[in-house]
């Protein structure tokens, strides 16, 4: 993992500096002297390999430094404030995705080819295809203006959590529904399911007790990387609902050349991705006894 993080760090470091523009670009071009003072202050006047070593040293000591653009904050403060919020929204999103996806997928698989199946799968495709800002707009019109249940945007109570969480989850729910349907159909055609049928277990029992675990395998391997994305926040949804999570920072740090913040976010994302993928591998053992962990 340390090696992965180091490689990601190195590649991002040099990529960031290779892009034109720098953190002090404004429309009002700075007086050359003022800009030189600024660069000296952030040690950007040093040769690039020296900057690299200095920054590597800092990051190794878990010090991500100060943000260039949000100068009053340390990168760690920004991440500590934003990550829990993104995670909270992400959890609602994950719950939506898994809940809706599983139910729709199972129902479709049990009655393949029926009207129900066709309409559920069409919905799933729409869910995947619709950009989140469209879903968000529909949700806002419905549940903010027509039926005033939820606040339009902002942060502070559980009610602020529902709409953004739902909008984050819907596209994933679509994908999960399709995954579950395919996997479930395959599992249901297996011998041991026929045995269970023969024993007289009902459809519900078969699906829930016997087929579910194997069906979950592809879903779980899909969820690992997806969860890393969901938990670190979605830019579009965060902008529309003004959720102060991490998603917007990703984009802004990149466009504003906030070197330190961008690096911090990349490392956090890499770390999350790594941890979640490891968890996915571990959970295979729980779901399928045939899988051996070595």
């Amino acid at each position, binding site marked *: 993992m340390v090696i992965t993080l180091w490689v990601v760090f190195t590649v991002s470091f040099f990529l960031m500096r290779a*892009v*034109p*523009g*720098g953190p002090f*670009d*404004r*429309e*009002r*071009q*700075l*007086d*050359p*002297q*003022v800009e030189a*003072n*600024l660069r*000296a*202050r952030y040690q950007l006047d040093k040769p690039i390999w020296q900057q690299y070593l200095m920054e590597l040293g800092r990051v190794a000591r878990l010090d991500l430094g*100060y943000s260039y*653009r*949000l*100068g*009053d*904050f340390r990168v760690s*403060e*920004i991440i500590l*404030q*934003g990550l*829990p*919020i993104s*995670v*909270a929204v992400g*959890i*609602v999103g994950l719950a939506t995705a898994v809940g809706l996806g599983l139910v729709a997928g199972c129902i479709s698989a049990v009655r393949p080819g029926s009207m129900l199946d066709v309409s559920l799968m069409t919905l799933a495709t729409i869910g995947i295809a619709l950009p989140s800002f469209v879903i968000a707009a529909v949700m*806002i019109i419905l549940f*903010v*203006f*027509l039926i*005033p249940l939820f*606040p*339009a*945007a*902002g*942060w*502070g*109570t*559980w009610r602020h*959590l529902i709409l953004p969480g739902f909008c984050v989850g819907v596209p994933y729910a679509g994908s999960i529904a399709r995954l579950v349907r395919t996997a479930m159909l395959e599992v249901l055609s297996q011998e041991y399911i026929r045995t269970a049928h023969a024993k007289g277990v009902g459809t519900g029992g078969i699906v829930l007790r016997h087929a579910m675990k194997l069906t979950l395998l592809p879903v779980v391997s899909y969820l690992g990387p997806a969860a890393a994305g969901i938990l670190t926040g979605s830019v579009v949804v965060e*902008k*529309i*609902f*003004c959720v*102060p999570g991490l998603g*917007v*920072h990703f984009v802004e740090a990149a*466009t*504003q*050349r906030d070197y330190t913040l961008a690096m911090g976010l990349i490392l956090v994302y890499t770390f999350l991705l790594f941890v979640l993928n490891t968890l996915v591998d571990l959970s295979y053992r*729980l779901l399928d006894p045939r899988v051996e962990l070595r």
Partner: protein
Amino acid sequence: MEPATRFLRRTYRHFIAAGVALLFFGGAVWALRASSLPPADFTFSNLGEIKTVDPALVTGSSEGRVVEALFEGLTRWHPEKLTPQPGMAYNWEISADGLTYTFFLRPEARWSDGTPLTAEDFVWSFRRFLHPETAAEYAAELWYIVGAKKYTSAQIELGDPVEVELPEKPPGARPFARGITLRGRLVGIQIGPDLQAITPLPVLPQDPPSAASAPGNAKDEPPIYWVDVDGELLAFQKGGKTPGTRDYQWLLYDFANVGIRAVDRHRLEIRLRHPVPYFLALMGFYPFSPVPPHCVESFGYPEWTKPGKLVTNGPYVLEFRRIRDRIRLRKNPYYWDRDNVRLEVVDVLAVESYTTNLNLYFTGQTDWIPIVPAEVIPEIRRRCPEEFHSYPLLGTYYYLLNTARPPLDDVRVRRALAMAIDRKEIVEKVTRAGQRPLRSMVPTVLTVSIPEYIPQEGPQFNVAEARRLLAEAGFPDGREFPPIDILYNTSEAHQAIAELVQAQWQRYLGIRVGLRNQEWAAYLSSRRRGDFYVARAGWIADYVDPISFLDMFSGDSPLNNTRWNHPEFNRLLERARHETDPKLRLELLATAERILMEELPAIPLYEYVSQNLVRPYVRGFYSNPKDFHPLKHIWVDYDLKATIHRPKGLWSRSR
């Protein structure tokens, strides 16, 4: 499988499941921990997270709205007329030659922790502002002051009075205070073996390190500065490696020779290099507010800006800051004019999206949004015209032309392009917020504040003449016109305007123009490198004076990306800078603008407008050309607010 292990595995699995669920739930609760906030008296949207609250480091209007509520300079602007009013200084005197300003500070002025605010605090703050280490972006605006430029740029010459800051701190100093400072005269600079000096100097023991090292290294060694401190000759070198030298932090032009001085506890004197008619107004601009020396020296930047540590001198203090959520301000009990500050708690929302802002406004979660999406303006005008405040701003939207690149190096081509733009169509079809077409670089609203200035207009919209000029330049009917493109930074509005101009040039001149869209940083970089033909630009003035719009086209201005360098124009600006007669000065500036509008290195398109949506019960909100709405003057009419049960808006009315 043994029943016992099986049971264990089951409980183990349930345990994991329960643990994960608990973790998720706990996380959600933790993230929502600050849910029960008491509501604020007034809430407004500030379009994004601000960069900092340190006045010396801010730029940008979002930062300005917060900083002007927290801090106050020597003067402050009238909320409607923008004229300089007494701020921290209750009165001032200007010498007859317009060069020396004496400000009389309020004896009762205090910092928000109760410490008295003195002229020394201002001197300390201006010094910090100008110090190269602070790297204030607005530093150049204070270079009107005697010696200020030399101080910021750390350019010192032989014979200059200098101050040397040592790494050691005086005993008992605060952790972030400056080091011990020695004052003296720079008498010698020694780079390697070369010595430049004005008096005979003792020779350093050169033998050990520098002579022994390779000859090429001598040049890389930091220079040695010889300073005469009270008759004693001292040698300073960065790092202090050469024997006989001392290490230092900063070696700068002596601040005692910069024209900022505390005459006594409540009297501040500022001396300028040349008269600056807007200097009093400039002193009301938020970057030039004082900062508390005791607070900054105790915590250092950025730690001193944290809520709880931040000490301010304006109408409000900082209660808390949540990144990209909100900033809460509370009334400052030590503010000199506290009796006229009527809002106790103010929330500043960091909502960026225009549509989200509109949603918040119409659901009653914010009382003022400073901008609305262009598409809904006609609808808003129809539904709630009394809540929409649109007023011309001191800002120009224009297109830059790269005069170094053919065919734009030909003034006839530039004129033809300018004459083939129908500005009316732009403001009516695209921007739609009441922007006024503009044919001069200096926006016409300037004449509200300075009626003596007459903005000089460029050529009118005239297709026939444009086609004639283009033919004269060698491109009849646009034939063989080289491919050029319009560069703009990513934004729907800029794109829509560029598309319209593209269509107009095609329609009226028969030339094909490409569009080039780059995100902000890349766009700025292209502009600076001169890698563009036509580039979109906008300029909003920091102070009310025509020179703000003209200065950026002078040959040596870092803002001049057009490669246009006109000696006569430069000369007129330089003369205007030193002209003491205000009338003559404005005439010089008008002549300069006329040259600019004949040569057209830039084509002005329209004048910016403010687009504020403000609830009817909000009082003390005035429109002005700087879109400046000090919180100090805003208050809420609670009687009226009580009569409006629901926020009045698009949706609630249509239901």
